């Protein structure tokens, strides 16, 4: 499974990605998780099975949904989970969304 995380500068998201990658490794899963700044994300939009947006670009959800055109879900990471870098919860929510 390929997860793409986006936010405007890609900085705080890249730290969250690292925490999620550690969690995925701990769970022994082979999920690929990558962080991309918003302007780059659109060029790689068809590589992901799910797109997670940081709260700071939650407003762009409709643009992302138009770009993927129903091919995969676009989800805004809940403020509390993002603020606490809650990698296990975010990964569980991804599974629930894709189930």
């Amino acid at each position, binding site marked *: 499974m390929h997860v793409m995380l986006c936010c405007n500068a890609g900085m*705080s998201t890249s*730290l969250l990605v690292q*925490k999620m990658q550690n969690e995925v490794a701990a769970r022994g899963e082979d999920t690929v998780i990558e962080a991309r700044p918003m302007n780059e994300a659109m060029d790689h939009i068809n590589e992901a099975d799910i797109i997670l947006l940081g709260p700071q670009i939650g*407003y762009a959800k409709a643009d992302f949904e138009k770009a993927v055109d129903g091919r995969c879900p676009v989800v*805004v990471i809940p*403020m509390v989970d993002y*603020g606490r*870098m809650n990698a296990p919860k975010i990964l569980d929510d991804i599974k629930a969304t894709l189930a």
Partner: protein
Amino acid sequence: MDEMNDLQMTCFEIISFVGTAKSCYINAIAKAKEGAFDEAADLIKQGDEAYNGGHDVHMKLLQADAAGERNGEAPLILLHAEDQMAGTETCKLMALNFIDTYKELFALKAKVAE
């Protein structure tokens, strides 16, 4: 850098709060553009609540700094949090002005259509 230290977690909290506020303010402009001014006002209110959440967390940092409890550490993530706060504040000012502008525009359109 496996374990997130307290300062990083504080920064993420700020970024998450003010980031949510920014989205609210930008969505408020989109609503005003559609003429949905009540929804726009509600989104501004939601944005303020989220922003205040970030502001409260930031205040704790300032107080710790003032009390000499911080070692002056300023990692890039703290600068990013500050940047997001300042940017969101500007976003709100712009959103309020856009909403007023769209209100006038819709009023003028209504008059022209009479």
